[in-house]
């Protein structure tokens, strides 16, 4: 457990909030700080009112320490908070999707990559190359282009989910379909299975949480990112 630098109660609340909201995006952090600070002040007041002895800095300090204890472990709170609020990295990821993913050169690259891979595939001779080429064009260029056209700004939960889907299809297409284009899956099934497992572990699983959060968001926007919070 992280230890506070000193024992001043005010610093204790700041420390608790800093640990509990560590890594959260500004909107969530600001809201939690505001509500828990008020909660804390009210709880301290209630403790002082219960205590019949005279109010001194010591009794106030005891009340504040008691309330901090009642707030619970900040690390446990942080785990709960991260399940429901965007973290800074997640909002950055979604913001980057909008900033970079929707640009024309990137969408055109989605056509160029399959074309290059088709050339390599045909040169090496796998039979399924033209079919996979069609799939790749669909996943790298057509789907993302439609998604970015449909996604409304600021980003609602539906738009964010769509963008994440487009991002996933791109990753899957690049990481799975591209090797299939150049290496026949029938000759190297182990390699293809390995690549699929790797993509799922590295790319898909970490983003399931973002996807899940996007589904649960309200449609109020973080002014700094334009993403629903």
């Amino acid at each position, binding site marked *: 457990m992280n230890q506070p630098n000193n024992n001043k109660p005010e610093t204790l609340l700041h420390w608790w909030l800093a640990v509990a909201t560590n890594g959260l995006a500004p909107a969530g952090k600001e809201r*939690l700080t505001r*509500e828990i600070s008020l*909660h804390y002040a009210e709880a301290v007041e209630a403790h002082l009112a219960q205590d019949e002895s005279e109010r001194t800095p010591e009794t106030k300090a005891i009340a504040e320490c008691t309330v901090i204890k009642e*707030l*619970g472990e900040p690390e*446990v709170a942080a785990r709960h908070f991260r399940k429901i609020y965007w973290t800074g990295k997640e909002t950055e990821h979604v913001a980057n999707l909008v900033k970079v993913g929707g640009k024309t050169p990137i969408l055109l690259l989605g056509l160029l990559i399959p074309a290059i891979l088709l050339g390599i595939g045909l040169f090496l001779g796998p039979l399924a190359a033209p079919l996979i080429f069609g799939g790749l064009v669909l996943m790298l260029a057509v789907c993302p282009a439609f998604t970015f056209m449909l996604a409304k700004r600021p980003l609602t939960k539906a738009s964010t989910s769509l963008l994440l889907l487009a991002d996933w299809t791109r990753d899957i297409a690049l990481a799975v379909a591209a090797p299939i284009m150049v290496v026949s899956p029938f000759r190297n099934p182990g390699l293809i299975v390995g690549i699929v497992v790797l993509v799922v572990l590295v790319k898909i699983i970490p983003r399931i949480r973002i996807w899940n959060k996007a589904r*649960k968001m309200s449609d109020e926007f973080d002014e700094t990112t334009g993403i629903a919070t």
Partner: protein
Amino acid sequence: MYPRYKPVMNFKGSLTTLILQNLKEGPNHGYRIAQEIKQKSKGVLDYKEGTLYPALHGLENKGLIESYTQEENGRTRCYYRLTKKGRGTLAEQKQEWARFSEAISLVLQET
């Protein structure tokens, strides 16, 4: 043969029902919600803020409750109130809880 029953309620998930029930009595803020749940349960249900606020904000995201701010003694306080959708959900969850607790009681009953 009993009809197949998929339980959707458990002890861990009961906080949202308790919050909805508390807000059924009128708008309230986080601290008071926690205090009232604690008092009514005679101190047994003492939810930490790390659990309470994500639950409140999660319910808000689902549209079951809504928040608004109000000035009080020079402080801007965040109040929560039940929505129409929240009322419906509360009624369903109460029924579900009655069914769940009855089932547990039946199992625990000494013969």
